[in-house]
Structures are given as structure tokens and as C-alpha cells.
């Protein structure tokens, strides 16, 4: 990745709705050059998608979220990838990571109700052959996600005017 691409990513990471024109000014690039850079990043699957960070607590929608630590038996020739692909396919799974430490996979799961989440664990995740154990922790409150602080507005602590 070159310097231009990194700078474009930095700006998109701050605000993916930033207008191309503003990016061009801030990075001293042509608008077309910015557009081409983003196109390339998308084609190379560096940028996978653009999604908002949503505070669901401020909506009518109910979401139950949990982090599940999973121990699995890696498969010959495939390691953890085969089971990861399988778990990926469940629509409840929001994120999936291979971890170092006392367990192997960390799954972020969301479901509309506690019952549906419990069903996912007991009926879909745990029965997988390679899964040898799970430990589920429910998310009680989100303070920060993807660098965005939730419900804790941090005002500018600086004096409004200083020499």
C-alpha cells in the first residue's frame, strides 16, 4: 500500500461519507485521483464495505449481543479455517476472530432476543463436531466501538480562546 492509499484510508476511517472534493483538497490530490485510489482499494478488497457505527440503544430495535469464546479441535490440512468458514455462515455472527490464549475463536453474536441467542449457541454452534467448549459473556453496555465513544460525549477540554 502506498502513501496516497494510506492517507485516503485514514480519512475514510474518520468519516466514510467525506465528499471526494474535500478529500482531494485535504490530500492535495485531483478528485479523479482520489476516486481512482478508492476504486483500487475496493477492487483489491482492502476496503470491504462502508457501514455506520450504530447505537442500537437509541433505536426501537432490540438487540442482544454476546461474546462467545470457543474451543475447537483444528482439522488436519485445514487448521481452524474450515470451522471458521462454517461459523461465518451463521447470520447471527457479526465478527469472528482466531485468538491466541486459552481459547481459539472469539465470536461476536447478535440476535433480537435472548431466546434466539441461546438457540444459536445450543442448536447451531455447540453441536458442531469440532467445537469442544464455549463460554458466553453478554454485552451489558457498549462504551466504545471501532474508535467511536458511545453516550459519553467528550467536550473539547481546551479553552475556547488562547494565545
Amino acid at each position, binding site marked *: 500500500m502506498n502513501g496516497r492509499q494510506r*492517507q485516503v484510508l485514514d480519512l475514510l476511517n474518520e468519516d466514510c461519507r467525506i465528499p471526494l472534493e474535500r478529500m482531494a*483538497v485535504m490530500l492535495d490530490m485531483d478528485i479523479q485521483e482520489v476516486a481512482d485510489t478508492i476504486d483500487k482499494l475496493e477492487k483489491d478488497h482492502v476496503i470491504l464495505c462502508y457501514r455506520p457505527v450504530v447505537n442500537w440503544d437509541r433505536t426501537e430495535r432490540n438487540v442482544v449481543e454476546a461474546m462467545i469464546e470457543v474451543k475447537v479441535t483444528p482439522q488436519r490440512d485445514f487448521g481452524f479455517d474450515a470451522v471458521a468458514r462454517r461459523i461465518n455462515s451463521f447470520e447471527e455472527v457479526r465478527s469472528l476472530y482466531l485468538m491466541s490464549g486459552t481459547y481459539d475463536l472469539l465470536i461476536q453474536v447478535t440476535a433480537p432476543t435472548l431466546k434466539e441467542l441461546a438457540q444459536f449457541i445450543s442448536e447451531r454452534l455447540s453441536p458442531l463436531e469440532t467445537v469442544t467448549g464455549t463460554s458466553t459473556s453478554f454485552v451489558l453496555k457498549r462504551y466504545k466501538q471501532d474508535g467511536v465513544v458511545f453516550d459519553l460525549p467528550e467536550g473539547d477540554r481546551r479553552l475556547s*480562546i488562547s494565545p
Partner: protein
Amino acid sequence: MSSRFVNPAISAVPPSAIRRFFDIAGTMKDAISLGVGEPDFVTPFPVRNTAIDSLLDGETSYTTNAGIQLRQEISWYLKNRSQLEYAPEDEVLVTVGASEAIDIALRALVRPGDEVLIPEPCYISYQACTLFASGVPVSVPTRAENDFELLAEDLKKRITKKSRVLVLSYPSNPTGAVMPLERLKAVAELAIKHDLFVICDEIYAELCYEGFTQHSIASLPGMRERTMVVSGFSKAFAMTGFRLGYLCAPRAIVAACARIHQYTIMCASRQSQVASYNALKQGRESNYADVSRMRESYDRRRRLMVQSFRDMGLSCFEPRGAFYTFPSIRHTGLSSEQFCERLLNEQHVVTVPGNAFGPSGEGHIRCCYATATEKLVEAFARIALFLESL
């Protein structure tokens, strides 16, 4: 009635012109401030943590007057970043911000009636500290048509037999101007010819853009013996609240400054010193990654602010240093103070009138771009509305 006890020499120094705006802005919840003079980054965590560790370890005593081992790091830093060599043991003094350094430098150098040459518009302390030191401030105007660089011929016109000190500060607060090497050499020649001592405030030296590097006048032939380099951690290291600065100069000058420092300040805060030590040490190990990251972010917003002002029809000199723009508002027919006051009252945007930094700042406003991009964009929209309403 108690005012009769106040030294008239102090009363004669006017209060900072920005105070009034601070009071008005304080009443507005939705005000957007372009009036700050500090970074919008929090000090990097490892640096803050060093100060916390120091407190937890019970390091609550005084340090030596000149400062802790931080002086070795400052010496190393200046050698590697600016090619300046100062002996840490007696040519470096750690101060409470660069502000203290400016104050004690002027008190150490200026005799009653000595003239201090101050290119302006400039940081607001130079004139006041000169007066506190019983000196006579002599303004040397710089102009937008010369990119606010100091011209040797302008300086020469104001040199008299009483001239003793020149205060040089580039990159400049409030203009964002830098000083190219050729013009710096011309100033250095004058300083040598007229036996001037130069206080060189380099607090913004790390924050240069467009590939520009601000050379220190101390590095030019014949200048080291007559130059003091003043800097600190507030701007490039985002450590304003730590109040940590330093001055570097030949031994005799530092000894004179240290004399004032030891009787008035004793020493800078130990926690600020250890945090600053760590900031330099980590910077050395990471090739100043944090400084680069912040500089890059300022640079993007610098371009955005300059272009936005130009799009609204304001003539805006392209700053290549610090984190300010200094657009001209002359065409509006308003004075700097009228413009800033009306902009604040009508659109709730805080800016600083250019004349707060000296008479040649009149017709300009200082706008700081060290603020979140979305706030800058909103501020530009409000300023555009204000301009349309005039």
C-alpha cells in the same frame, strides 16, 4: 483603591485583547472555536502514563534547578533534528513552558532602556515581557505580500544604538509563516553586524508543511554565540498542560537565566519533566511517529481551511508552519476586532483578531485548524453565511 499599590509599569501593560472574546464565547454553548492556540490531540498515552508512574513511585520532590536527565535528551534531540550542539550540563535549562524561557531570557539580557526588536504580528508575550524587563519593545512589521517573512531591510531600519535583542519566532504564531534560509542568513548578517542577541522561539519548528524545514538561526555561521534557542513540548508533542519548555544557549547566558529561574521557579514540575523525557526518548526510538501522525493530520486540515477561505473570497496567505491561518478580512470594511466580535455574536464562531498580535495584524484574523474536521466544516459554513450577510 488598592490599585494605588500596583506598580504603574505593570498597569501600563494592556491586558490581552483576546480576553473579551473568551468571556463572550463562554456564554455560547454551540460556539465553534477557531481561537485555540493548542493541539486537539491528547498527549499520547505512554507519555501520560510516565507522569502517573512517577507519582505512584512517590517522585514528589524538587528536581535540580536546571532539570533532570531530560537535558541529555533535549541535547540529543537538537543535535539530530536541528544540527545544534548544546552541552546538557550547562547549556540547557528546563523551564515552565517556553513562556518562562522567554520571560527569563529577556530579564537576563535586557537592561533598562534597551530596545528589543520584535517582528510582528507575533505571539503576545514578547512585547509584555520586554516591558516587564524594563526594556523598550520595537515592532518590526512583516507583511502578507512578503509571506510574513522578516525582511532584513525592514529590520535594519529599526536598529539603533540601543538595540540589544531580536526575538525571532518562525514558524509564526499567528501567521503560520516560515522563514526561508536566504532571508534568515540576511537577518543573521545584520545581527552580527550590529551585535544583537537573538532569542529564537522555535516552539513550532516540528510543524512545517509542504516539505519545508525551518532552519534555526543558531545553526548559521557566527550565530551560536549570540543566539538562544527556546522551545518546548506543548505544540509538537501535544503537551500544553504539562507546561514544559527549555532554553539552550552559550554557558554564560544559561547561567544568567538559571539565576532568575532558581530564585523564582526553583524547578519545573518533576512529573512534567519525566513525561517530556519519555516523549523525546520514545520519539527517538520511533522516529517521532506520534509527531509525524499529528503533523500529517494538521496538514490535511490546513489545506482544507486555506481552500475553504479562498472559496468564500477571503485572501488567505498559504501558511507553511504552525497550525494557524491568517486570512485577510480587509475587504469587508470591518476592523479585525469588529469582524471577530460580529462573527462571534452572529454565527457563534470564535476567531482571534489579528491586531491582538500587533498593529500589522490589523485586517486579518487568526484561525486555528487544530479542530475536528466536522467542526471546521460547520465553522466554514457559518463564516460564509456571515460574509454573505455583510
